[in-house]
């Protein structure tokens, strides 16, 4: 596709529910990043894939957070047993081989009630 596509755009989850957020990268982009953005803050790094390999997951806040990219294209961020503090915008971003610029999707807005 022309840009990074994320779904769902908006998700309301009850506390304790599991959620899955999907990212479709720009075609051919090998690097994929997940960021979490709380209200009034800048995006904070969660995890990074190069193709299907998860090279850095140092930003995942707890073992309730899990990300995968099994075929090196679409990625899913899964949050188990959601808590209220998980409420944030989850941004996916991708980068091609040749450039340094990282392009963001519109984000998935998660509200845990």
């Amino acid at each position, binding site marked *: 596709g022309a840009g*990074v596509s*994320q779904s769902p755009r908006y998700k309301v989850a009850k506390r304790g529910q599991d959620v899955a957020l999907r990212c479709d990268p720009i075609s051919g982009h090998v*690097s994929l*990043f997940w*960021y979490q953005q709380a209200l*009034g*803050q*800048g*995006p*904070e*790094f969660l995890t*990074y894939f190069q193709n299907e390999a998860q*090279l*850095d997951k140092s930003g995942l806040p707890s073992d309730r957070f899990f990300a995968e990219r099994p075929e090196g294209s679409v990625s899913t961020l899964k949050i188990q047993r959601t808590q209220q503090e998980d409420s944030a915008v989850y*941004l996916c*971003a991708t*980068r091609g081989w040749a450039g*340094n*610029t*990282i*392009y*963001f*999707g*519109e*984000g998935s*807005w998660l509200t845990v009630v």
Partner: protein
Amino acid sequence: DQQVKQNSPSLSVQEGRISILNCDYTNSMFDYFLWYKKYPAEGPTFLISISSIKDKNEDGRFTVFLNKSAKHLSLHIVPSQPGDSAVYFCAASRVSGKLIFGQGTTLQVKP
């Protein structure tokens, strides 16, 4: 430890004048810097970038300046337009491409 800081949460300028947004960083290993613009309910949109081997990069109304000795970069918008009103984030990266973001500055351009 905030490695990238935008110390001004907001900035208001008159249409047609210059907007200057500032950003400071602490890690001298950063080798690439980017500015992103964000409208409400949208993801960040890439605006302009600069490599650490340069001190200036210009693209139309937008110019980014990098002062490595001061670990400081700035974004100049000339002339400012009402459509430029948004939140601006600076970000820094190393070879891995992982971006570290500042907290953002909300720019308001008044007609």
